[in-house]
């Protein structure tokens, strides 16, 4: 079973990963976006780290809700409302349980992913974060490692795709050949989850 400590480890591992990979995320975003994905997420997760430290929530759902809330209010770019909605909706789905199973987490993530898809109007294959998150949430029923692998593969699979959402979509054919920054940061989120489970 997964408790609030596990979720705090997950969010802190994600903040570390964002710090570590911010340069690469921004580089990817420079190719097909507006070159701020890494810095935006870093600003968001710096606020998340501070908020979780100041007021460590005592349930899994509350950890995700507080994280999502911080991201919505501090990121400044589209990834704020998107990741904020993902985590808040997943947190809401977990309710007030003190401990949740991996299956419950997978279910909650799927609820969050559905909310993100609705908010952004995107679907799998549009070269967005959904291309990493959807296969990962499906594989999470099997194991954390399978989820991580599915997210990494999903992010890599965005390279040949034509972007249909966000700023990259204005580039049309020129968006082909670049890995999607959002799918890449989503793979970090799933990678941090596997790290927390180790």
């Amino acid at each position, binding site marked *: 079973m997964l408790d609030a400590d596990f979720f705090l480890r997950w969010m802190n591992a994600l903040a570390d990963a964002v710090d570590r990979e911010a340069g690469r995320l921004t580089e990817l975003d420079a190719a097909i976006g507006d070159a*701020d994905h890494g810095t*935006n997420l870093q600003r968001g997760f710096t606020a998340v780290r501070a908020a979780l430290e100041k007021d460590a929530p005592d349930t899994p759902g509350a950890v995700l809700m507080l994280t999502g809330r911080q991201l*919505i*209010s501090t990121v*400044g*770019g*589209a*990834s*704020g*409302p*998107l990741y*904020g*909605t993902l985590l808040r909706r997943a947190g809401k789905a977990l309710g007030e349980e003190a401990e949740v199973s991996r299956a419950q987490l997978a279910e909650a993530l799927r609820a969050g992913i559905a*909310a993100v898809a609705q*908010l*952004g109007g995107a679907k799998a294959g549009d070269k967005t974060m959904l291309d990493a998150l959807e296969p990962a949430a499906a594989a999470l029923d099997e194991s954390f490692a399978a989820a991580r692998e599915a997210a990494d593969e999903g992010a890599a699979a965005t390279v040949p795709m034509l972007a249909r959402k*966000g*700023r990259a979509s204005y580039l049309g054919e020129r968006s082909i050949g670049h890995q999607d920054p959002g799918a890449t940061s989503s793979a970090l989120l799933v990678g941090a989850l596997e790290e927390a489970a180790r």
Partner: protein
Amino acid sequence: MTGPVGIVLVSHSAQVAESVADLARRLAGAGDAVPVAAAGGVADGGLGTSPELTARAAHQVDRGAGVAVLVDIGSAVLTVKALLAEGDELPEGTRLVDAPFVEGAVAAVVTAAAGADLDAVEAAAVEAYDYRKV
């Protein structure tokens, strides 16, 4: 019983939001009759969308008759949608209006200045999409 519909303009750029607000007020000849607030850029003046500035602007223009929010692109759209989904961040009767930013803002302010309700303000702003230029 209630005042005019409030208008909020959310852009990635503080200058764009302010300028469009000013343009709409002047073209509408609305003076201060319609509360129009600009929420542009992020708090430090950079480009982006700030939920805080957006929520503050919406509360500032709320006179009880509803608030029409017009947005430019990308994160401005997503930020307002996310705020609306939160439920308690924006005044009751706040609506994201699907309209072109400049033309929609002018139409919205003109209509609000005539004392129209939120439905009519929204309809006027949305209609701006139908105005073909060639």
